[in-house]
């Protein structure tokens, strides 16, 4: 019971060298307002340091953002792979930014959800995060 009411802890990060961080600056603000605990890693991260942080911080969620080009198709799967290797697949991975339609099935298969973009209302994002974490915690209990 205590477990399911614990504050949602979320690591917000951009992997690689993309610098378009407008989205995560705003998202982090919204998540804090919604009562979540945000670990803000910002730009220029490797999948390794994102996963390390998420495990050290005992986070529920990793929120990844990417906009500039196509390399998210390397970084996002790598994050999932590293979590698996470290036995931390209970951490939910979500993605946003500019994730083109054709790539989504492959990412969904890896368990990545969200795919929020420029016009996704933030309440939709918050609800998605809360629901997914709730399900994950329920699985654990």
């Amino acid at each position, binding site marked *: 019971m205590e477990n399911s009411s614990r504050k949602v802890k979320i690591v917000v990060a951009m992997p690689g060298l993309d610098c378009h961080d407008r989205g995560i600056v705003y998202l982090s603000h919204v998540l804090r307002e919604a009562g979540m605990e945000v670990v803000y890693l910002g*730009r*220029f991260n490797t999948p390794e340091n994102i996963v390390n942080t998420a495990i050290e911080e005992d986070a529920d969620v990793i929120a990844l953002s990417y906009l*500039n080009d196509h*390399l998210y198709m390397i970084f996002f799967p790598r994050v999932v792979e590293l979590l698996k290797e470290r036995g931390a697949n209970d951490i939910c991975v979500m993605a946003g930014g500019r994730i083109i339609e054709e790539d989504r099935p492959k990412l969904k298969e890896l368990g990545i959800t969200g795919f929020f973009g420029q016009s996704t209302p933030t309440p939709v994002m918050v609800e998605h995060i809360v629901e997914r974490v709730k399900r994950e915690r329920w699985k654990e209990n």
Partner: protein
Amino acid sequence: MGSEEKIKSTRRFDVCPVTETSAGIPLKDVYGPQDLEGIDYKDDVADPGEYPFTRGIWSNMYRGKLWTRRVFTGLGSTADTNERYKYLLGKGASGLYCFGDTITHQGIDPDHPLAEGYAGVSGVSIVCLQDMYHLFDGISLEDVSVSFNNPSMAATVVYAAFVAYAEEMGYDLSKISGSILNEPIHLVYSMFETNAKPLELAAKLATDVIEYSIKNTPRWHPIAPNAYDMHEKGANAIQEMAFTIAIMEEYIQRMIKRGYNIDAFAPRVSVFGCACDIDFFEEICKFRAARKVWAKLMKEKYGAKKAASCRLYLSVHTSGNSLTVQQPVNNVARVTLESLACVLGGLQSFDPAGYDEGYYILTEHSALTSLNIHNILAYESRVASVADPLAGSYFIESLTEKMEQEMFKIINKIDDMGGAIKATESGWIGSEMDHELIKEQKEIEEKKRIIVGMNEFTVSKEEEVPIEVGRDRPLEEQMATSKKREDEISKLRETRDKKAVKNALEDLRGQAAKGEDHNLIPAMMESLRAKATLGEILGVIREANDASYDPYEVIQYSL
């Protein structure tokens, strides 16, 4: 008449919902003579071409010369970019634009481990002197102006390579014109901060370009600070200009410390690269107010005597942030409106964004559309015939005055903090921008800011007007492009005279330890001629200044 329910307009009695400018300046219903009280025509407005240049920097504005008509360019390889240049020049472009790729901005080479997949993607990769040969093949540099969008420490190397190339080609350096962004401080809050640190070193290198350029490439603009990125990252119209002017003061003060009189360099450092967003009148007044603030600062604070030192050249990339991925064809209307504000605001140069900017780098078709927005405004619409046609409007003059006052408040505040580097390091400027960004996004979500097709007047994907948009290259292609570039640079490393490169770099290292006032451009050019790369050149300079060779601390110096 059928019996079924008739469709009624639900918006018949809508009122204009906007009562303040985008930056939050309250707007009245109507303006009148009383709003001009305290504004003196001669002191505050003055004729175009007269101090303080509120109405524009030339007396006859576009009758003397139309604005420079650029279109965003920066594609994959240097050869691809060269091909696009030739295409655009053939279609009437009068200036060229070069956007660096991510790793050029970061100052790392294509064979750096973190560069994998990034070389030559969403911008052009410039790493060595040879790249200039490919980029400008078959184009006469004496007859076209080139604008390099390189913001970070890499800008000094790109400038050195450009000058070394021009010399080798036998061009008359006094005829080379154009600009390079070359302003690293703003990167801390907007882009590639890793290659802007240490900030003092970055500012020193940017100052080297200014100093070298005023002596050797007198028609070149050696710094064109990036107000654009600050706007796109949150800064409102007032902050955008105030922060940029405060940042420019850092370089002005460095040049003065190096012993130069303000009039010896100010005329070459007064070019800003700004955004132009959708708030039409505010943007026009932003340009007018910024010219006035700059002129006053040069004359009153720095004692400039020459009119040229007080003339602020303004250039714009219309706001990418104002565009939508939904219904991309609507962006043509937005960009046109923003471009019109640029003309009415008396700009010297601008590039209208591509309608598909939200998707990818412009296609040939969207680039042609952007170019034709220029052509329609310049040749067809007659809007450019009269200098500053809005002057004297109660509203325009009063808003210009108000924005000037607000800009000065911020500039003075930063001055009190010890300058823009201090205000950056303390996080003040960054947090001011975040605050504005959050406010703006909130207003969009609450529909206080309407964005057609995005938060209001939306249609389904199927209902959208079909239009071609730029597409990401598939991942495999992106990786292959980057790999090809990586191989080119690896090959350069293998085939060059290693001893010559090492000697040149060691000499540069020695010179880089000589302190703030020792100009490094000649030694950089020497290294480039010996086929040193961007990463190596910046690496040894960084090491000589107690920073790591690699900004990401992944690789070591290995010659």
